[in-house]
């Protein structure tokens, strides 16, 4: 019996005009585990994540979420075909996403941001949505800030609200695109802690990050992307342990000065 992975990508290609950003990615993301996506900037990490979230349509290849194809599927003769738009929403609703720039809606309070989709998408009553949103904010330690607007929160707090916003919809899979890259080091910690405890609950997570320490200690699998190709994948010990792929050596030289050396 083969276990269906949470995310399965096969032959994913993404082109922007002439630029081929992803050149045929095959990737399995296991259920209930943390997978970290590393790679130098411009290697296509965000693009891959955005294809998985269907914010971007991939040019070729197929992405399946929990075994269900997202946006494109295989036709009767094995050819790739576009699936009806109505099939996207249910598949996509299994995915939550957290952005580097937080993207909180500035005209709503923290609570409003979390409750919005509960009311307009999930059709909960206002009071139910309120209670659920409060519970989610409490989990990220921000129940006290529920009434604050994004402009009144620190970057770390904003990102924790963004995580609560995604979690409130009970996704099966959480995608994180450099969630701490616009934060000061001291604020990075509070966000990483929230992510760590989320991982402990058994959430399936695909995380793009430059926090090597986090990747090494929390991830069960590391995927290394370079020039739109999947260069190396494996357990952290194997990927970081010697002998290393020369590109990874180079990459670590660039990013590994945050006291994370001891962790790998």
């Amino acid at each position, binding site marked *: 019996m083969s276990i269906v992975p949470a995310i399965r990508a096969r032959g994913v290609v993404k082109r922007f005009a002439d630029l081929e950003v992803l050149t045929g990615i095959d990737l399995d993301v296991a259920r209930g585990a943390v997978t970290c996506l590393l790679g130098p900037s411009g290697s296509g990490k965000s693009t891959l994540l955005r294809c998985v*979230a269907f*914010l971007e349509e991939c040019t070729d290849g197929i992405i399946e979420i929990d075994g269900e194809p997202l946006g494109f599927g295989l036709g009767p003769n094995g050819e790739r075909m576009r699936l009806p738009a109505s099939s996207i*929403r249910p598949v*996509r*609703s299994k*995915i*939550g*996403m957290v*952005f580097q*720039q*937080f*993207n*909180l*809606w*500035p*005209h*709503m309070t923290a609570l409003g941001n979390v409750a*919005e*989709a509960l009311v*307009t*998408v999930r059709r909960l009553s206002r009071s139910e949505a309120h209670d659920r949103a409060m519970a989610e904010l409490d989990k990220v330690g921000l129940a006290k800030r529920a009434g604050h*607007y*994004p*402009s*009144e*929160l*620190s*970057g770390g707090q*904003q990102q924790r609200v*963004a995580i609560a*916003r*995604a979690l409130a*919809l009970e996704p099966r899979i959480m995608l994180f695109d450099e969630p701490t890259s*616009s934060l000061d080091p001291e604020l990075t910690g509070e966000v990483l802690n929230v992510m760590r405890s989320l991982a402990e609950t058994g959430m399936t997570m695909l995380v793009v990050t430059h926090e090597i320490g986090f990747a090494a200690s929390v991830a069960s699998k590391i995927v290394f992307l370079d020039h739109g190709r999947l260069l190396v994948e494996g357990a952290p010990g194997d990927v970081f342990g010697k002998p290393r792929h020369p590109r990874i050596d180079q990459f670590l030289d660039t990013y590994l000065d945050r006291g994370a050396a001891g962790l790998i």
Partner: protein
Amino acid sequence: MTSLLSYLTGEDGRNILSGLINTCILWVIGSGLGAIFGFLIAVARRYGPRLIDYVLQASVEVIRGTPFLVQIYLLYFGGPYLCLSLGEASACLTLDPFEAGILGLSVYGAAYYSELFRAGFEAIPRGHVEAAETVGLDRWQTLTRIILPEMTMLVLPSMVNMTILLLKETAVLSIISVKELKFQVDIIGNRDYAFVESFTILALVYWALVEICGALGRAAERRLSRYRFAHS
């Protein structure tokens, strides 16, 4: 002072008041219609087909590139020559000054408002819309719940400026004898040879209206300011 008071009571006072009321009617309807049509133009240009975008862009550029006074002349003096005939029946665009004024202000305002809303659409970070997409809001919900409220904050200051600009343009309508404030005060000024006095008073009244409008706008901005910027 007694003389000024004597203007404000009796016949003159009534005329001035009716002029002021007409100015306000022109202003409110002109900017209201202008804003509504401007918004529709902006939406059509953003979400409609390419061809509509081009046609609307050209029209907006023409209106923004020509003087309001010339537009009013064209509408008021040229309108009666602009006829549409269908067989026997024919209809011409014959407008009285007030109608020409309202129409002119709305069209002029719509062109400027549309540009302002377009800029507002552009200024909303893409990520905010993507975040709405990832939590499952549909296009309509994204428009009404995220884009419009956010855009309101972004365009409020320029909306206030534009509305003030339209108030000042209403004075131009006196040239085609719309019976608004300047027209009514002119009559009295001409009769009594009190040009400097009448224009000074007019200037002060418009100035006061503009300052009040600006102050209200700033107060609204202050109240909304915390909705405005995320720390990113």
